[in-house]
């Protein structure tokens, strides 16, 4: 649920990075946090375990600047990917406006990606949201593993596993090297904003 403040001309929207545990969601946010410090006037909040795994979420607000005379503030969150944390994952999804699905390119994670995407679909449905309608970007992360000679899934396989029906915009990326991390972010923000814009014109019509 985005919040639009007509008085101060401010929009707040929530984008959640979802995906299997260890896929690189936190690393995505850390990269953004370090690269875009001018757009972030806040500490990065992390609720994690002793072992540095995300327990609840990572968070910071990202200032997009003005879009059509409105100041846009995007709340960026990650979820805990581990299967056992489903109830906290659901809490983080509450009121989500856009999702980045971070898939892991490592061959042995193939199944985990598919299970996590299915879980996203189910958890969105709890909030009466349809994975086919919500702004969604898929990121094939850890492409750099190939350089270390480690086996990675080819893009065709990942597209077939995860994106055959969804047909969401997708990026090959490396959160470790920063490759396509900002492109992923830009894409999800623009998809979220244009979806909001559509809903807004619709809501205005409804009011007349």
């Amino acid at each position, binding site marked *: *649920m*985005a*919040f*639009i*403040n*007509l*008085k*101060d001309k401010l929009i*707040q929207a*929530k984008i959640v990075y979802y995906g299997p545990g260890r896929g690189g969601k936190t690393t995505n946010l850390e990269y953004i946090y370090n690269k875009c410090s001018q757009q972030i006037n*806040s*500490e990065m*909040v992390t*609720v994690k375990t002793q072992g540095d795994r995300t327990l*609840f*979420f990572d*968070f*910071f*607000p990202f200032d997009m600047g003005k879009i059509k005379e409105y100041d846009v*503030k995007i*709340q960026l*969150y990650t979820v805990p990917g581990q299967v056992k944390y489903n*109830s*906290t994952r659901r*809490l*983080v999804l*509450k*009121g*989500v406006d856009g999702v980045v699905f971070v898939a892991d390119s490592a061959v042995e994670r193939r199944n985990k990606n598919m299970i996590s995407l299915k879980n996203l679909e189910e958890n969105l449905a709890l909030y009466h949201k349809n994975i086919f309608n919500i702004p969604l970007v898929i990121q094939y992360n850890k492409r750099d593993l190939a350089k270390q000679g480690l086996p990675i899934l080819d893009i065709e396989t990942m597209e077939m596993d995860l994106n055959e029906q969804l047909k969401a915009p997708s990026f090959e990326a490396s959160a470790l090297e920063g490759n396509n991390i900002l492109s992923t972010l830009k894409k999800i923000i623009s998809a979220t904003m244009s979806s*909001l814009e559509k*809903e*807004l014109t619709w*809501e205005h019509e409804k009011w007349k």
Partner: protein
Amino acid sequence: MNLILGQKQLDRIHDALTENLIGIGVQSAMLIDTAGNIIVSVDNGNGVRDVYSLAALAAANFGAMSSMAKIVGEDEFSLLFHKGEKESIYFSKINDDFLLINIFGNQVSLGFLRLKAAKVIEDLTAVLVTA
């Protein structure tokens, strides 16, 4: 569904928080939604600096508390209050979508604050249903 509020509604919320809460010595009073967005935030001049982080954590904390209540067989815990040495936090649920958060020091009594918060919640409910 999105929430759109105009000048009039936001002013009313701002006034309700300022008069009833800041007026009795509360340091920061915030209306947030359960997704963690800040709807209105007011303070006495020495408020919390990082309101966005606070809102994100408060919404998550509230969600976690509600889920725990259900697990132990309660609908909701009626008092959500964290006491610190100097500052304390009091959460109130307005409805399924909105929360009121108060941060206050020792000079404010929790009992009085709860009374005032109840009054504010009435006002806010009226504003938010017309949204």
